[in-house]
Each structure stands twice: as structure tokens, then as C-alpha cells.
């Protein structure tokens, strides 16, 4: 695909080449952040970006690394353009690489527009607060960590946990009830194995969502610098579909841990002062400029919802990657190895998980009037049960009072019946809430402190109906 303008300037000599960076003599007229061509002696052309320019030198970061660059015959050519993605509605159903080039064997995109991959910040005053409930059909998400349109909600996973299966289940089932609207899926595979990428593609085929999806694939063997561009290309495509075509776009970025590792590697090449664990100090801002592209805009049809997936190194939620992500995103879905070992799917740790946008998306007219009360009471009861479980491992369940034994049993049932469900089971939000009420019927009624009496009378199964 040719989105490079014809206007070209040639430059002087390369003075050093190391890691992914080359330094050249000053290039007149080069713009900060501009995309350049590096023409090697053997005729091969690599692409790069000017990341530090001055009257004396220009530093170019080379996509694909500096292998075979020499200081005599290689030349840098500028084109006066920053990194742009050619877009049109025909990108739906296509597969691109981390540079935005089609890799599905099809023709290049006939561009309707070329968009700057960095995007522009949404004016905070133009945003609409996200409030439309997305039903994923998964109880632990719909009931306790509800997702709304325009939200950015990551999945914090760890190696060996079934995040790919959960995401495909969400993609398969997610809907805003009672609405027939145009929606699209943008998937960016960032430094993942070929298997993971093809798992996802295969699933999209099977559910027939393939023609409503745009895929950007950067596998583990592709150059790390392209890894930095991949999520930006995906978000640019998503914003185009949302704001130009009024579509509701769900963006899946997998795996952002690979992205952050690439960022650290680059930062080290640039000899920057590292912050925590060697990650650059600007990682928060860098991630934020991407995740903040989610949202809804007043007066616009579409929306961009982002679901990044990241694997927590060593299952550590305080590691800089999940930590900085958690500060940017509107909550997180955290997967638990312990639940996984118990054979519970999806193994969602409901204590560590959180959706900050939930309150706006639930309640009468959106999900059901009792949703918030049920949510609060389920947390309270499960948390009591887990606390007692911890105590009972030391003193034995027999030494607990009767009331405490009930809570212990309720916690077990909560995990087996509420959290756990089939990979192809789609629960309506009402079903989810009713499972909650089923659990409440085990507890003494006066313990239901967090539910209003009105709802208790309306929804609590009578004692005869106890399951």
C-alpha cells in the first residue's frame, strides 16, 4: 500500500547505528516525529521515525532494527509525513500487520483518508459519560463488574489462565439489549504467538463476526518497534469506524504486557533514565494516550470500548504494567489462579475486579432496579464467607457458629453457581441477579442489611421455594 507522498528529500551521512537507532547529520526540513526511509547499500528500504532532531544531528528510530545498515552507503530520506493509516470502510474484514500493510493476500486499502495514528485527545467537555450497559452474558462481569459502552476495562491475567477464551466469549455474546446497531470489533495481536492470533481468527470465523472485524497482527517474531505502532493503528481504525461511520466498536488489545516490554527495550536503546523496574517514566502517559481514545462523544452515534488484555508478570498486580494500567483504565477484571485450580470457569477474582463505570450503567430501566443492592449484598456475603473460610482452615469448620457455617456454605455456592458458568452459556442479566437471590435465601433474612425491604419482598424466594 502506498501512502507515502512522492515529495522526497535525501540526506547526508549516517554517523552511528546501534540497537534500533541511527544518528545522522542534521537533515534540513525534517519534522519532529516524521516517518523516514532508510535506504541501505543493498537497495533494501527500512522505515524509521525521527525522535530527536537538532541543528547538528538527527536521531532516527528504525522499524525492524538496524541490521545491515552501514555508515557509508546507507541514506536517510525524508518524506515530510508522520505515521498515518489509510482508512476506508473496506478495512472491515481485513487483516493488517503492525505497519498497517494488508497481510491477508487482498489488495491494499483504497484510502478515503489518511489518519494520524496518534490521534487527537477528545475534548473532556465533549465527552458523554458512558452509561449503556453491555450484556456479556457472564455473571461475574454483568452482575458485579458491569461493562458499559465507551469504557476501557482491561483483563488482568497471568500466564496459563484462560483469558483468550473469556475474551472470545465476550466477543461472541456482548450486546446492548433491545438495540439493533452497527458494531465492529478491532483486534490487535501484540507480540503474541502465532497460535494465539490464529485462535482468535478462527473463533471470529466460526461466529460469523469475521466481516465485522479488523485485525492487526504483530506476532512475537515481528520487530519490536512495530509493536509500538500496532495498538495505535488498531485504535485509529476503531476511532475511524466509530466517529466516521457511527459504529459501536469493541477494541481488544492482546497482550499489552508485550507492548510495555517493547517500550522498555526501546527506552533502554535511547539511553533514557529508567523509572520503576527499568520501565520508562513516561509509560503512564504513553498508555494513557492510547486508552483515553475510548469513549463516547456528545452528538455522535458511535462509541469506542477498549478491552486490553495483559498478563501480570509473576501474577503480581503491583508490577508496574498492571499497576499503571489500573490507574488509567476504568476498573479491571482480574483472573485468579486459585479459582482456576478449583476448576471454575471463568476464574474471575471478584474482590480484585472492579468496574468504575458500573453505577452509571445499572439499575431500573437499564438492568433491573435491584441490581445495585444485589451487587452490594453479594460482595458483603462472599467477603464474610471468604474471611470465615480463612479462619476455618486454622480452627476447623466444626468450631464455627451456625451462622458462620451458613456463610461458609454460601461462599462455596457462590463460586460454583454464580461465578462458574459454561463457556457457551449466555446468561441474561435477570438470570444472573436471580442466582444471587437464590443465594440470599440461604442467609438469615435480617442479615440482608444492604438490600431495601421493598426488594426483599419482591425478589427473595419464599422459604418453600428454597433451592
Amino acid at each position: 500500500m502506498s501512502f507515502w507522498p512522492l515529495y522526497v528529500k535525501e540526506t547526508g551521512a549516517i554517523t552511528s547505528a546501534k540497537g534500533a537507532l541511527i544518528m545522522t547529520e542534521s537533515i534540513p526540513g525534517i519534522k519532529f516525529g516524521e516517518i523516514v526511509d532508510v535506504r541501505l547499500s543493498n537497495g533494501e528500504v527500512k522505515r524509521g521515525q525521527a525522535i530527536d532532531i537538532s541543528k547538528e544531528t538527527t536521531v532516527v528510530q528504525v522499524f525492524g532494527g538496524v541490521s545491515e545498515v552501514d555508515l557509508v552507503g546507507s541514506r536517510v530520506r525524508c518524506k515530510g509525513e508522520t505515521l498515518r493509516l489509510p482508512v476506508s470502510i473496506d478495512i472491515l474484514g481485513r487483516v493488517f500487520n503492525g505497519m498497517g500493510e494488508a497481510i491477508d493476500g487482498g489488495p491494499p486499502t483504497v484510502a478515503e483518508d489518511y489518519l494520524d495514528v496518534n490521534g487527537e485527545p477528545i475534548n473532556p467537555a465533549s465527552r458523554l459519560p458512558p452509561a449503556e450497559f453491555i450484556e456479556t452474558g457472564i455473571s461475574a462481569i454483568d452482575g458485579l463488574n458491569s461493562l458499559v459502552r465507551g469504557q476501557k476495562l482491561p483483563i488482568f491475567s497471568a500466564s496459563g489462565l484462560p483469558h483468550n477464551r473469556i475474551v472470545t466469549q465476550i466477543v461472541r455474546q456482548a450486546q446492548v439489549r433491545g438495540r439493533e446497531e452497527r458494531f465492529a470489533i478491532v483486534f490487535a495481536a501484540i507480540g503474541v504467538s502465532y497460535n494465539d492470533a490464529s485462535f482468535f481468527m478462527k473463533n471470529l470465523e466460526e461466529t460469523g463476526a469475521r466481516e465485522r472485524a479488523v485485525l492487526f497482527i504483530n506476532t512475537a517474531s515481528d520487530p519490536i518497534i512495530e509493536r509500538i505502532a500496532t495498538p495505535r493503528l488498531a485504535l485509529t481504525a476503531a476511532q475511524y469506524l466509530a466517529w466516521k461511520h457511527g459504529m459501536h466498536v469493541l477494541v481488544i488489545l492482546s497482550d499489552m504486557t508485550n507492548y510495555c516490554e517493547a517500550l522498555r527495550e526501546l527506552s533502554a536503546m535511547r539511553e533514557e533514565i529508567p523509572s520503576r523496574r527499568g520501565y520508562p517514566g513516561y509509560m503512564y502517559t504513553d498508555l494513557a494516550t492510547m486508552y483515553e481514545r475510548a469513549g463516547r462523544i456528545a452528538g455522535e452515534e458511535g462509541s469506542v470500548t477498549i478491552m486490553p488484555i495483559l498478563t501480570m508478570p509473576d501474577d503480581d498486580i503491583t508490577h508496574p504494567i498492571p499497576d499503571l494500567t489500573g490507574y488509567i483504565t476504568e476498573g479491571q477484571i482480574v483472573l485468579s489462579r486459585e479459582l482456576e485450580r478449583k476448576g471454575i470457569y471463568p476464574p474471575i477474582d471478584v474482590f480484585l475486579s472492579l468496574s468504575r463505570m458500573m453505577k452509571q450503567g445499572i439499575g431500573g430501566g437499564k438492568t433491573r432496579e435491584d441490581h445495585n443492592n444485589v451487587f452490594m449484598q453479594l460482595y458483603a456475603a462472599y467477603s464474610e464467607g471468604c474471611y470465615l473460610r480463612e479462619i476455618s482452615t486454622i480452627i476447623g469448620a466444626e468450631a464455627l457458629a451456625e451462622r458462620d457455617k451458613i456463610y461458609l456454605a454460601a461462599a462455596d455456592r457462590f463460586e460454583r453457581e454464580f461465578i462458574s458458568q459454561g463457556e457457551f452459556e449466555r446468561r441474561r442479566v435477570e438470570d444472573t441477579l436471580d442466582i444471587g437471590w437464590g443465594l440470599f435465601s440461604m442467609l438469615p433474612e435480617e442479615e440482608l442489611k444492604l438490600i431495601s425491604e421493598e426488594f426483599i419482598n419482591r425478589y427473595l424466594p419464599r422459604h418453600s421455594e428454597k433451592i
Partner: protein
Amino acid sequence: MGRIWRISGPLIIAEEMKGAQVYEIVEIGEEGLIGEIIGLEGDRAMIQAHEDTVGLEVGQGVSGMGRILTAELGPGIVGSIYDGLQKPLTVLMESGSFLKRGVKVSRLPRDRKWHFTPQVAAGDRVNGGDIIGTVPETELIEHRVMVPLGMGGVVKEIGEGDYTVEEPVAWVEVDGEVQGLTLMQEWPVRKPRPYKRRLAPSQLLITGMRIMDYMFPLALGGKAAIPGGFGTGKTVALQQLARWAQTHLNIYVGCGERGNEMADVLYSFRQLKDPSTGRLLQEKEVFLANTSNMPVVAREASIFVGITIAEYFRDMGYDILLVADSTSRWAEAMREVGGRLEEMPGEEGFPAYLGSRLSSFYERAGLVECEGSPQRRGSVTIVGAVSPPGADFSEPVTQNTLRIVDALYSLDVSLANRRHFPTISWLSSYSLYVDAVRDWWSNVAPEWEQTRATALKILQEEAGLEEIVRLVGPEALPEKDKLLLLVARMIREDFLMQSAYHEIDTYCLPQRAHSMLATILKFYELAGKLSEEGISVAEIRSSPLVYKISRMKDIPHDEFDDRIKQLWDEMEVGLVSHKGVA
């Protein structure tokens, strides 16, 4: 007029900049991007750009504006939504939903007319800070027009009427020269506005949050920090403060935080009403929104623009609350610029001047006697959020902040996981204003000090007993301790826990907070007697009174006193010896 020599992210080095001064504002390149000189070396100037620098070229022009970064002060500020450089975002919306760089807009509306009523007459002598008249800016804020600081003279002409911010409302003869006074003035944001004298804080800042007002009070003119890991409800706590704090004007600085949350704040403030006046909250708020995807360097400016606006309204004799979410993002902006300047880093890459820069912000809080006449007092209270990486409070921003502030509201992840909100920890928070507000509280509830101490002691003892429970189980404890655990739990769940989303519970007056806690302690006293007489705690726990106490939060404000009195009567009957538990 200089030229760009080097561009490295937000850092620009320009040459041929002789005559420029540090912190001078410059316009860069063809689009005239705003930047600020942060250092000079020979004829070169180091510039931090407040806008994205992609696309700039070496050799493009840089022109000094001959002034340093200022805030524009005058009517039209209240209710506005600004970016970090005080550009009104609602005006920028006219050029699209996305922020373009290099757009120039005026900070205060130039065409709007304000009705000015003079308070001085021709022939009066006026000095800097004197109030010469008023403008009704919103229903809640009367804008008091002051003589710019450092100016003084005799009023030649002044008249009631409708003026824009640029039209003179008065003419003053200063050293034989007649100058016009307008409704608008400018002040450099990095320079604290002067006052006559600093006073010791003595009045409670009513926040409507029980754990703050009652347990760890904040005084008007105080400074506090709220550190907490992600998901600990920091933003909700700050929003609650900005909503309900009983001050004249609240300033909410969203510095490097989420856009959707900012949208939510803006949206909710257009719906919610101030509990004491019944007017829309928007009429007493100023918003500065510099979200995390907006230019990094402008984060620093947003904090200083916010505090300058706060001081300006303080000088009118108002009590101002400034909420900054989050100072950590501001510190990260400093780190980014410092790193590019290749400064010697301090801890974790932060510049060595992190501590002094933080103090230069927090030290601008205080209760003061304002400049000028009539005599008046005003205050600025600062509450800053800190976002420690990995919720580790030993990191530099938290530690440097703790050296400066006098109240700490420490947010606890484990409380958030249990969905106990607000997650302010009663074991690790503190307030040095307890003594300062003692007199204030004694007028509201004379037993405050005693009640507060008792409750904190119960919670402290609970923490000790918890460890034993983990070893031997709750059933093995003596009855006395079981009762203490029950009461501690009631204090936690029925008093400290407060829902930001509950119509009634979201805001709690100090008097009501006192009644609630006193009720729980009364229950403790009566139940203690019962327990001594051999009634088991299990039986006490199942009393309907326990349930009724837990519902105190839901009682509407107008019925509260009656219902609490009724509850006390029921306790006297239901928790009396020899009858068992009713």
C-alpha cells in the same frame, strides 16, 4: 525572535534567544504552540512545550511573549471548564470534539457584559486589594472587584452599569496619571498572591463525610493528602469533597486523570444541588481538566493555574477548596522534563527538587487576613490525591507530600476489596487539626472529643482482637470481646461506611454524624450490662435493634431527630436487664 535548535519530545531548545527570561511564555513554530522557558544558557533557551510537538522543524521561529505564565482573573471563571492553561474547553468545542493544538481563545469571555455596582465613590483613596464594587457572577458567588495588588490612588470616576471585562469600570489617579480599572486582571501563576497576615485554622471544613468530619477533621485553610492505590476509591472520595464541602467555591483540578471520569464529574455537577443553598453545584465550581492524554507539561501549569484562581477568590474573603487529582501525575510531568534536560535524578528518576516544588504548591493553602479594605478573611484548603505505584507509600511523591501536609487520609486496598467505602483507613489516617477544631465541635456536640476517642479506641482494640480471632476463631473469645467485635463492626458498617450513591447517605451533617455514633455507643453501654448479666452476644446480635441501628443511614434528614429519639427509647426498653433481648 529565536529559532528552534533541537526538538526532543516536549523539550525544545531554541537559539538566538538573548533577552529572554526564565518562565517567559513563547510561541513556537507556524502554529504558535505555547511553551515556557525553563532555563537559559548563553543565547539558548530550554523550553517546555505545553502542546504536542510532532511536526515541528529545526529552524522554525520561537518568539518570546514578554510575559510569564499568568491566569486571567475576573468574572466568568465560576462554572467554567478549563484546560491546564485556562483555555475554556466549552469554547474549544466549537472547533470540534477533538482538541487541536495552537488554537487561541480568550480565557475570560470578552463579549459578555457584567453588572457592576460600586462600593467606593469618586474622591476615595484606594489601594491594592481594596474592594471597589461587586458583580453578581452566579447566584452563589458575588464577585468582589479588587484594585490590582501593588496599585493605589484616588478614584476619579466610578459608576454603576454593565461592562465587559475589558471596559474600565473606574478611573484612578495614580501618581498624577489617570488609569482605568477593569473587571479583569492577570497574575503570574507561580507567584503566591500576598496577604496581610496568616492565621491559625480554627473552623471545621464540613465535608459531609463522617470519617473526615468526625474522626479526622480538616480545617478551613488546611492541607491534606489522599494517597491510595488504584481502585481504592480515590476519585470518588475527591468528587464527594468537591460536591459537598461547605465552602464558597470549589476548584477541581483533574491533572493527568481519566477523561470519562471528568465527563462524569462535569455531567453530575450540572444536575446536583448544593445542600445548603439548593442551587446547582456548577454555580460554585471551577473545573480544570487536563486529562492523561493531553500534553504532559500542561499538567504542571494546571495545578498552578488552579491555586492562583483559588487565591484570587480567597482575597475576596471567601473560603475555597482546591482538589487536585492527582499530584503524582504532575510529578511525573516534572520527571519527564527533568529527564530530557539530563538533570541529575533523585529517587526513582524524579528530579531532586520534587519536594520543594510540592511544598511551593501546598504552602499556598492557609487561612489569611486579606490585603486591602474592608477587613476580611479568606482561606484556601488543599486536598491533593497521590497515586503511589503499587500502592507503596514509601515512594518519593507520597513521602515528600507527607512532610508537608497536616492531614492524611490513607486509602486502604483491603477495604476497597471488601467494598467498604470510603476506604479511608481509621488505623493509619491522621489529622493534626483535631485540636484546632475542638472549640468548633464543642458548640455542635460537646461530647465530640470523648465520643470520637472512644470509637477510635474500640476500632483499635478490634484490630488487636482480629489477630487472635485468626488463630482461635471468633467462638473462643470471651463474651466481652465478642461484644466489642460486634460494636466495632457496627461502627465500621453503620457509621464509617457511607455510600456516595445513596440519596440521603451521600451527605451527612456533623450533628447527624454525632447522633449516629452516640446511638451505637449507647447500644454498647446497654448491651454491656446485659452481657454481664449472662445474656449471650449471639442473642444480642440477633436483636431487631441491631438491624434498626444499621438503617439509621437511610432516615430522611427531616425525620432524623424524632426517629433517633424513638430508637433510644426502644433501646431503653429492649435492652434492659432480666427481660432478655426484645
